[in-house]
């Protein structure tokens, strides 16, 4: 049955307009992404990574509590067997960096590219929206993904660790929140800026997404190989290796445990964490620069 529509005519609107227009832009980006199956699949993978690390953190602390009540855990080699919370958190940030990149390849790849392709800039900028609000809206939309998959879960892992740690470890773990969250936030910033920045250079979401993931993987592989073959400076070109270096440095990860060798994600790092930090900031700056350049180019205003 066809609906009957009865227009009541045009009514004037006497309503204050307090909403920051960046938020609807961010929400629209996420709503459109959520409608794609690939986004849900990617989030499922992220959830799996979180689950594995959750089991690792909880398992080692429960084991520690158990052995502490029985005997000297150091003598029993508990640390060697299950590792440390530092190591689990560092592994989580490094591994989840890659899986979050997969999700962002779906969510953020079209953030700017699709607007270019369908000519939506007019739709946005014919309204009282500044270039800055548009850029912040897109960055916010893309940034919510690593906040939800990387920063938030890292906090939950830390919270779980601090909550169930035996009293002897609680004091040490309490202060682990700052480096854990700082490293996760740094990873989130790099992912957000680079994914949106690459989107600003492309014109089709799928192409941008594929290039983003392939670029990260190839860059990581090639630079890893070069760095380990006597050209260490190439290691600073890979955001993944840079992040791993900074995370290990911030979290003071010790020697690798048996558990860390089972769960991949602790390959070698660069020798200079400050150099890696600068490398990450350079990638973030490049992404933001590409975004600014594109918006400046597409929206010419007096």
């Amino acid at each position, binding site marked *: 049955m066809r609906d009957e529509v009865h227009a009541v005519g045009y*009514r*004037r609107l006497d309503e204050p307009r307090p*909403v920051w227009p960046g938020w*609807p832009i961010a929400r629209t980006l996420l709503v459109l992404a959520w409608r794609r199956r690939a986004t849900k699949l990617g989030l499922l993978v992220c959830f799996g990574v979180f689950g594995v690390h959750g089991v690792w953190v909880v398992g080692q602390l429960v084991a520690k509590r158990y052995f502490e009540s029985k005997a000297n855990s150091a003598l029993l080699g508990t640390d060697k067997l299950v590792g440390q919370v530092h190591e689990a958190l560092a592994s989580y940030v490094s591994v989840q960096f890659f899986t979050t990149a997969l999700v962002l390849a779906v969510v953020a790849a079209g953030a700017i590219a699709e607007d270019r392709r*369908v000519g939506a800039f007019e739709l946005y900028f*014919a309204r009282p929206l500044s270039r800055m609000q548009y850029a912040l809206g897109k960055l916010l939309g893309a940034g919510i993904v690593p906040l939800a998959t990387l920063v938030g879960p890292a906090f939950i892992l830390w919270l779980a660790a601090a909550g169930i740690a035996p009293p002897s470890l609680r004091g040490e773990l309490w202060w682990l929140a700052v480096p854990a969250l700082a490293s996760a936030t740094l990873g989130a910033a790099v992912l957000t800026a680079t994914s949106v920045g690459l989107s600003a250079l492309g014109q089709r979401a799928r192409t941008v997404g594929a290039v983003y993931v392939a670029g990260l993987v190839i860059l990581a592989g090639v630079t890893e190989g070069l760095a380990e073959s006597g050209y260490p400076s190439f290691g600073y070109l890979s955001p993944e290796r840079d992040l791993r270096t900074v995370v290990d440095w911030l979290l003071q990860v010790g020697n690798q445990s048996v558990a860390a060798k089972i769960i991949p994600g602790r390959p070698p790092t660069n020798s200079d964490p400050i150099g890696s930090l600068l490398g990450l900031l350079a990638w973030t700056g490049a992404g933001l620069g590409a975004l600014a350049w594109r918006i400046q180019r597409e929206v010419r205003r007096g």
Partner: protein
Amino acid sequence: MPLLNLQGVNKRYGGTKALDAVGFAVDGRAIGLLGPNGAGKTTLMKVLLGLEAPDSGAIQVLGLDARTAPTAIRGKLGYAAEGPGRLPGLSGLESVALAGELCGLRRRVALLRAHDMLDLVGLDEARYRPVETYSTGMHQRVKVAMALVHDPELVLLDEPTSGLDPESRDELLDLIVHLRSGGGPAVLLSTHLLHDVERTCDTVVIMRRGQVRYAGPLAALQAQTPDRWAVRTARPAPALVTALAARGADAAAADQAEVLEVALPQGAGPELVWAAAAEAGAAVVHLAPVAGNLEAAFLGAIAEEGA
């Protein structure tokens, strides 16, 4: 305060002058921006919106200076672009609500208002479908709803009837008439279709090759061209032609000998024809104004200065 006040506005794309010393001040509830393709209509709209910066000139929209208050102007304008202007994946309702939110409306208010505007433009249950499944007519309706959702003071419609079937076109023109006569926003209608302007607008701006050839009330433009009437007599009446000529009217036989096309002198009405017919003893069986007065005025306006 005129709705639009432009002085010496120039805009150049490479070697092409899109706007050439455009200057006019117009007011009215519905302004027709008329001109052939490539006349500079869309460029003018983009300059009004601040989407394009003019090379020189002064622009006032709704009394606000476009150079100093572009954001405030855009908040008071609604714009339905000629291009697609849509986000694939969103439904018509979501698109209109998003347009409202971008103008600062709260989500709830934007959704309610989106429903109102989609009712107004006549998009029924299709509003819940993704916009990429829409027909051209549905797209045009959504674009108009997006332009109206935040209750602008002036809505700019760029070729809104292009690609529409006659019924949809009729409905859209009815909507513009409704906005003009109701309490809605003023309308700036860009089109190359004379009929659309004649039916909906009270003011007209005629452009050609980036220049404004006429800007002012539509009635005044029509008055500039002779009032033309078609006169059918029972039999061919050469005496009527003479009698009309004696009264200053210009009569010429049409395809059929008993049909005359009469251009009345300025200020004269059809009673002049009746008087001439009485004098010539001609039996007038049909007397009606010739459609296309605007067409004649338009052609006259764009033909000026040897263009």
